[in-house]
């Protein structure tokens, strides 16, 4: 039978002291982290209102887009949108006789972040036909997400196309049946939907959309 060894005198005190030091060390360490976190948590100097717009939408909404199936909204007239860009300049999506490619973008979406420079390079290379308008809709805007505010991102990318700032609930996106970003809608001069596609499409896809727009 084994005999239980008696704890050495003072061993309990030493253990208690060690535990106390751990607790004190933990509290001090936590305090330092809190102080450091507070010292670098400065309020970003951004006007919250400029991330959103207040567009008006008139007309019947398009059904929600479903990837991989025949677009049930083909041939339907897309709603007219009257809005503004982040500087307050009016931007409209209306039946004005010009074919249009509408591109819906979300600032936090990594696929949009990949696609924007591709689209801008494509435009800069003169690939956008003169009789086709490219209009972006800045949507799904969320201040708590990364890459805020969207206009800073687009300006950094040298974005030159007119942009409509969607509102906080994504009214324009909902009316165009957006199911994911980036999201393209091709309209003819009377705002009739010629085709919709979601996702990164690259240069080949952009050329195809431009050809589709011109065919309308």
């Amino acid at each position: 039978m084994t005999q239980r060894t008696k704890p050495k005198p003072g061993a309990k005190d030493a253990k208690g002291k060690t535990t106390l030091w751990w607790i004190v060390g933990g509290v001090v360490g936590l305090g330092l982290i809190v102080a450091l976190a507070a010292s670098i948590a400065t309020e970003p100097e951004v006007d919250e209102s400029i991330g959103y717009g207040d567009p008006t939408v008139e007309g019947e909404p398009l059904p929600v887009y479903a990837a991989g199936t025949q677009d049930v909204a083909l041939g339907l007239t897309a709603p007219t949108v009257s809005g503004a860009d982040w500087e307050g300049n009016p931007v409209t999506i209306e039946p004005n006789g010009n074919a249009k490619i509408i591109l819906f973008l979300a600032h936090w979406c990594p696929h949009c972040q990949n696609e924007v420079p591709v689209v801008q390079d494509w435009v800069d290379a003169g690939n956008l036909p003169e009789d086709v308008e490219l209009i972006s809709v800045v949507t799904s805007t969320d201040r708590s997400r990364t890459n805020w505010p969207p206009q800073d991102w687009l300006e950094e990318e040298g974005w030159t196309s007119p942009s409509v700032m969607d509102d906080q609930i994504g009214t324009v996106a909902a009316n165009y049946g957006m199911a994911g970003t980036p999201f393209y809608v091709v309209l003819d001069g009377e705002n009739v939907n010629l085709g919709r596609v979601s996702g990164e499409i690259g240069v080949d896809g952009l050329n195809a959309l431009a050809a589709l727009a011109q065919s309308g």
Partner: protein
Amino acid sequence: MSAQTILFFNNFFAILTVVALVGAVGLLIFRVVRGPEAATLLGSKAVWLAWVVALVATIGSLMYSELFHYVPCRLCWFQRIAMYPLAVVLLVGALRREVAVKFYAIPIALIGLVISIYHNVLQFFPSLEGTSCDPLVPCSARSIEMFGFMDLPFMAGAGFIVIAVLLAFYTKAPE
């Protein structure tokens, strides 16, 4: 909740993550340098520290969803499924002084770590998920970006690493 408050907690958890990761790496180096005797460095405190990590991660995760209204994505939920039970299991193991708790907790932490790693990879290579973002809660989109690379799945992954390392050091303190 003001933007500054959220920013404070982003900073807080980010710094905590770095400190905890550095600590875990330090422990591993200590173990390599000192050999098997290093395993007794923390004794039973290791399980209490691991529990604190799991508790802070659980509270932090609930703060982000319930107070800051960040909606957890699918992979975030899988990581929560791994982390939340650890906060309970490790407490019971610590109170009962059962070294065997590490044999239950380490596998859970490692499963959580694998999911965290995949989630981080997805954020760096979003094309793995597809070519478009779910407008509500895509796994590939970052919720926050601290120090240019750290998002919530990175913090969760660090938590799982630290828990696993601490539990590897968990030995019963001599009576």
